[in-house]
Structures are given as structure tokens and as C-alpha cells.
């Protein structure tokens, strides 16, 4: 674990994101990748969860466009992305109109700064 190693899994995950790094967990006993970050593996009960850097690529498993009035910021995407490590997370796909995000689309993670708080979003894998 680089950087801040204080606190629980949730706090450590966020501290890494705030420094621009996206890490997930992998169980040292059963080898499953784990997301969201936990203190005990939900597959085998082991506490030996190690932080690993995911490849950062994955596929849109499902997607919705949340409708919002233009004066409040307009429509936006909410997607579930399945990382190539096999875990799924909620995120959004940037760089294309929300209604153009499709199930099966290959995407790549990036960490963005949202008012000082790091968060993972995705863009199309083939985007420049």
C-alpha cells in the first residue's frame, strides 16, 4: 500500500483516489478480486485482502441516462462497469453523449478530481 495506510478499507481506497490512484483489492487466500473495498473477503472470509492496481479496462454491463433539467446541468450517464478483473462498479462514461453509452462498450478508467475528492470515471477504450 502506497501513501496513506491509516483507517479502514473504505478510507484507504478514498485516500488513494484523492492522490490520483485507483486501487482495488484481491484476496490473498482465494484469489478473487474484491470491490467495493472491505475488511473481510466476501467470498471466503479471509482478512488477507491486498491492494492491487487493476488494468483499468472493462466493459459497460448496464447503463442509464438520468434525465435532469438543462438549468440543473442536463442529462447524465450512470453505468455499471465490469472491470477485466471481474468486479463491477457504478461509475459514468465521459466523452460521449449519455444516450450513446451502450452495454458492451469497452471502456478505460481514469481518476478525476471532483472538488478535491478523487473519483473513478470511464471513457471509451479507443478514445484519444
Amino acid at each position, binding site marked *: 500500500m502506497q501513501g496513506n495506510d491509516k483507517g479502514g478499507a473504505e478510507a484507504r481506497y478514498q485516500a488513494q483516489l484523492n492522490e490520483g490512484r485507483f486501487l482495488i483489492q484481491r484476496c490473498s487466500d482465494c484469489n478473487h478480486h474484491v470491490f*467495493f473495498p472491505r475488511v473481510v473477503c466476501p467470498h471466503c472470509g479471509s482478512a488477507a485482502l491486498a491492494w492491487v492496481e487493476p488494468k483499468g479496462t472493462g466493459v459497460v454491463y448496464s447503463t*442509464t441516462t438520468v434525465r435532469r433539467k438543462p438549468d440543473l446541468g442536463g442529462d447524465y450517464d*450512470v453505468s455499471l462497469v465490469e472491470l477485466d478483473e471481474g468486479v463491477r462498479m*457504478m461509475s*459514468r462514461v465521459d466523452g460521449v453523449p449519455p444516450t450513446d453509452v451502450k*452495454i458492451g462498450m469497452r471502456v478505460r478508467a481514469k481518476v478525476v478530481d471532483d472538488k478535491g475528492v478523487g473519483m473513478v470515471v470511464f471513457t471509451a477504450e479507443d478514445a484519444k
Partner: protein
Amino acid sequence: MSLKDLRGKIAIVGVGTAGCGEAHGMSDLEILTQAAKAAVEDAGLAMKDMDGLCTANLNSAMWPLNVVEGLGVRPKFVDGTNVGGAAFVAHQLPAMLALNAGLCDAVLVCYGSTQRTATFGRKERSAARILLDPDPFQTPYKPFNPPSSYALIAARHMHQYGTTRRHLAEVAVAARKWAQLNPEAFARDPLDIDTVLKARMISDPLTAYDCCLVTDGAAAYVMTRADRAKELRKTPVYILSNATAVWHRSVSSMRDLTVTPSKDSGERAFAAAGLGPKDMHMLQTYDAFSINTILALEDLGFCGKGEGGAFVENGAIAPGGKFPVNTNGGGLSCVHPNMYGAFITIEAVRQLRGECGERQVKGAKTAVVNGNGGNSASCQSTSVLATADAL
């Protein structure tokens, strides 16, 4: 002892509703109390006879205390488990166990919410809950929940199985047609498929008509042992079984977006009842969104996985169709005060008593009730109810 040993041992003997639609100036507790009074009187009992209590509320973590105080009861058995709107179906099994063991003699299951008209209503509560009950791995992406979670489920179901927006619209229109036969229903204007398809999107692929109502409403019912039930005012409706399954909290944690815990709760409930989907005369399922009805039909075994869209085509679950579903108009068109599980139980009881007037399912002797709770079909609780003929 197994679940099967409880088959038919407990009956629902009184039901009541209050404040459905809009209950201006009333509190959650006040309309709950009105519904409880109606249910107790329907059973021919008195409030002081209620020595068991099951209740929950979204705003209050210790809600059974509020209800005990408001009703003036001192229960020997209490269950305040909150698994979302499925709670008021899931309350049945602990109540059945307590009644069967003789720990108490009459259990009141009750709920009330004035989310539509209250000053501290749905919007305010949603904002407060983000702070009280954080969801740190979803909140940053601003899902508009619950619609967005069910939208993700619907989108995946459409992708995997070819389910269409027209299939979803069939569910909404069927619910509306039942509501038009129910004087208690809130939304009774005519509705057709094209209107649903052209309606304002909330969270794609769900339009406003694919989402349940936001209303006020209270519901209560009374459970007692079968031997005692026979001596009471109304014809008893027997609980053949109840089973609950809880698999996750958030849509991000669902293993397969197209399969709900009803797959498990339904299998256990039917096995204990000794009956199957083909024996059911109706389904009363929690339709928080149009996709819920399709998922329930599949997961409870009325059709195969992915076949729910085809099942509901051509008005199949509407009045006059091949299989009656949500005969009160459902959460989509009858009433939906946040947590709706007590209402589906009550509609099944009213149908099995033959009290449903224009919307009565003729000769109905069996019903399956399927509660849904949480933001993404997280908890499901299934009951098989029946008249004495099916015992």
C-alpha cells in the same frame, strides 16, 4: 420443525387501509392508527387484543416504539425489521413462529406514510438519508434512486432477453386497467401503450409511467392462529407459507441484474405450501417499477427467465387476460406510500374473501404475494395465501 409444519396454522383475519392517495395534514402515525383500527374492527377484535406488533418506517429507526405508544398497546412480541417495502410480507414468518409457539395470540402488522403531502416528505427524506445511511460507492455518480437502479436492471434485461419498452408499457397499462375497477386507487385516468412509450423519461428506459406512484397511505392486517380465526368475524385467509431472501443492498453488488431473490424465496414458499405457480389464481407482486412485475413472473416460475416480456403481451395480466396480476392497480396505479408490502397482502386477502366488486377474480382460492424491498430488488419475501378449500 420445518416451514412446512406451519402450513395453514396461521390466518389473516382482519385488514384495513387509510389515507390512501392524499392525507393532507395527517402524520404517518395518525393514518397508521386509522388503518390499524379498521383492521382490528374488521377482525371483530379490539386494539387491546393485539399482543404482537410488526411495523417499520423509513424515517424512524425505532418506529415500533412510536407505534406502541400511539396505539396504546403493550405487545409481548415485536418485530421492527426493515428490509424495505418487502418488510410487511417478511414480517409474516416471525409472527407465524411467535403465534404458533403461543408467545402471543394476535399480531398486528401495520404501516403508514404521508410522504406525498407531509412538509418533511420524500425529497427531504432522500437528502437526509444520504447523510444517515451513506452509499459511498454509488452516491458520487448521482444515481436517481430508486428509479436509476431499476433502470439499470431493465436495460440489462432488455439487452439479454430482447425485452422491449412496449413490454414494460404493457405492465403499466394492465395496472391502470385494474385501478379503473378499484374505487380506492389513486390513478384511474385512461392510459394506453403509446402514451407510456411517449412519456417523459425519468431514467432510461423507464418513463414516468414505468415508475410507481408517490402517494400517502396506511395499511394494517391482523394475524392469529387458525383455530381462533374460525371464531372471528370474517372468513379467514390462511397463510400456507412465507419465505424471505436477501441478497444485496445496491445494484452495483447484484451478481446478475436479471435475477432477483424471489427465485429463492418463491421456491421455498411454493415448496412449503405444497403448491406451484400453476395452482395460483392470482399474483399480487410489488411493482415499484414496471420491470418488477416481469422479474417476479419469471423468478416465481410463471414463465422462464427472459420470457416475462412475452408473458405480459396483449393484455395478458390485465382484467380479462389469462392471469390476474396486481388486481388493485398496484404500486403503479393504486397506491405507493414508500413501502407498499402490506397493501399487496391486503389485496390478496380481499380477493380471497370475495370482497373486490368489479375487479373480483371469480372463484379465487389461492394467491401468491411477492414483496420487493430496497433500491434494487434487494430483498424479496413470498407468501402463498389460500381459502380453507386449499388447506
